């Protein structure tokens, strides 16, 4: 009797797993960049609720927390592929983790689509790792245009997080454009998790910095901004998409008012696609507030992968990977998404300003 039951159970389990398509969401749900993971996962969940099936099969999303850690990023990628047997991976979130986890996906030939990793290294020489966001050569250019041309600043202090691939790369592209324009800049360094930046800020003030550019993540951006204001730095502060979470305002308080940053999307920008309207409407209905940048990217990641599975007409990871790179003008929440043969999306950069504790859309820089 017991044996029959076990056999029956195995049949039920295998049948039920046969009828679903499994995706993994590898997100930092805890740790230093958890705010990104939570927002992105909200977007994925919403997309999954609105579009739960593909090719007549149910889509199941397995959430695995990488704790904002590179080692855990590799572990969760392995678990997703080897234990959960997923056909595609949504994630990782920050560039350093996507580089680490992406190596596993590449080796196992399972497609991985990152919502938000902007460093070029993420997709470089990879066939299975793609992204639905712009990459840093363009974001760095846009940030430099914002600082030097739109705002007319000079002698920028660039604060580099030496531990993050994202920050190092992004700063480098900013610097290149600054040199092209014949403008001045200098570097200050810190490390993820630092709390005290007073020495770097004092040094930057002594060097007469005309602006701060912080291509890092929100925890440090908020702390640098508030310590800078306390130490008497009144010039503009700029950042990248690492600042596009409410935590920047919560932790930074008044100090982040007038902070400008480059980002992927803002609900205040004109909606271009049907999905964008649907996304804003449904999100607002569900959460009672306007969606953020990363939520929209999470939504788009799911939608792009679902679209690729539909076009591939199969749940074979290799065919899905191929279909992802053939995405052309897909109408996503953040605009039309085309993924080129390198796995990069070509998109415009939105510029957002913080005013009285609110994100206010300012303008868009097109490629």
């Amino acid at each position, binding site marked *: 009797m017991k044996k029959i039951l076990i056999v029956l159970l195995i049949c039920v389990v295998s049948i039920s797993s046969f009828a679903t398509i499994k995706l993994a969401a590898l997100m930092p749900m805890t740790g230093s960049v*958890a705010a990104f993971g939570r927002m992105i996962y909200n977007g994925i969940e919403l997309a999954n609720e609105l579009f739960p099936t593909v090719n007549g099969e149910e889509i199941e999303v397995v959430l695995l927390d990488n704790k904002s850690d590179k080692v855990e990023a590799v572990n969760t990628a392995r678990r997703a592929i080897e234990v959960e047997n997923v056909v595609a991976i949504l994630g990782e979130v920050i560039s350093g983790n996507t580089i680490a986890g992406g190596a596993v996906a590449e080796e196992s030939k399972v497609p991985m689509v990152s919502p938000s990793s902007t460093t070029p290294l993420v997709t470089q020489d990879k066939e299975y790792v793609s992204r639905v966001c712009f990459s840093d050569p363009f974001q760095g250019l846009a940030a430099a245009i914002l600082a030097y041309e739109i705002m007319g600043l000079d002698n920028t202090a660039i604060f580099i997080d030496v531990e993050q691939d994202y920050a190092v790369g992004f700063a480098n592209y900013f610097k290149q454009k600054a040199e092209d324009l014949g403008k001045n800049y200098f570097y200050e360094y810190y*490390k993820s998790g630092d709390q005290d930046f007073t020495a770097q800020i004092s040094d930057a003030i002594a060097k007469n910095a005309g602006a701060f550019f912080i291509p890092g993540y929100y925890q440090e951006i908020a702390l640098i901004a508030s310590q800078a204001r306390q130490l008497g730095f*009144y010039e503009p502060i700029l950042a990248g998409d690492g600042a596009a979470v409410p935590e920047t305002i919560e932790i930074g308080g008044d100090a982040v008012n007038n902070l400008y940053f480059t980002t992927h999307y803002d609900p205040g920008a004109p909606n271009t696609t049907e999905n964008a309207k649907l996304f804003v409407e449904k999100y607002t209905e569900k959460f009672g507030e306007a969606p953020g940048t990363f939520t929209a990217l999470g939504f788009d990641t799911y939608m792009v992968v679902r679209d690729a599975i539909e076009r591939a007409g199969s749940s074979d990871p290799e065919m899905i990977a191929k279909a992802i790179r053939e995405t052309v003008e897909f109408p996503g929440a953040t605009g039309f998404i085309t993924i080129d043969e390198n796995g990069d999306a070509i998109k415009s950069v939105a510029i957002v300003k913080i005013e009285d504790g609110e994100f206010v859309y300012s303008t868009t820089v097109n490629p």
Partner: protein
Amino acid sequence: MSFNNFIQNLLNGISIGSLYALIAVGYTMVYGILKLINFAHGDVFMMAVYFCFYAVTLFTVPWWLSVIIAVAGAALLGFLIDRVAYKPIRNAPRISALITAIGVSFFLESLAVVLFSGVAKSFRKVFPSFLGEMIIIGGEEQVKYGQNVIVGGTRIPVITIITIITTAAVLLILWRIVYHTKQGMAMRAVSMDIPTTSLMGVNVNNIIGMTFALGSALAGIGGILWAIRYPQLWPYMGFLPGIKAFIAAILGGIGSIFGAVVGGLILGVLEIMIVGFFPSLAGYKDAFAFLILIVVLSVKPSGLMGQKEIKKV
């Protein structure tokens, strides 16, 4: 570095150093008695900040009461950690206790992730805003972006002054307790020889529990001052300050309370000055703290104020 800048850095260094000192004293007291490095100390520091945060945001108690609640909570937590985790293995080899300490640390961090979520919370608005103000000495008035502001000068955050005064006051009280009360005398006796002290009719476990409670209360005070300065709290916030305080305790000579204070101040000032003098090395600030640890351990393992252990053969 200009003179102004030097003074600014020195003040920042003393302020962060006195926080290290507060935490390091707790490490050193426990080590002095049990020869145990209590790695959970940094997590008690973190828990205290959460107690304070929730007392204000969830139960809307006034801020001064929340400080008392948080410090009392930290003391109780320290006491419980000793009773639950360390007391049962009091006579086990030292390495077992060390591993237990690491286990307790992981437990508290994970518990905080489950209870308080892994996303950073803002500590702003928990305390009155005057704590975030600055005292500005010198500088000149200018108009920038439509606002009258003072440019240049030396800036002393109000919290820096409060931190230094609080640390001094708390350490004075601690000194009174350790050197001028019966319990303090018992503590010093326990740190010399546990079996003999217990033969003299001292309840050793109670004295050890009290030491944990006192050390944890200091970590709690340090945690709150830390969070006012860096207004962001998350479950792993205690890790690095804990490690730095540990280095400070080693530097000063572990087991010596006065040494821990000196070690904390030296470490705080050195950290800031290294960045001040060599800005390009700022990303490796923490590495310097560990470098200090290695140098001290290889050159003078007993630290600046530590006593050499005399072993009778």
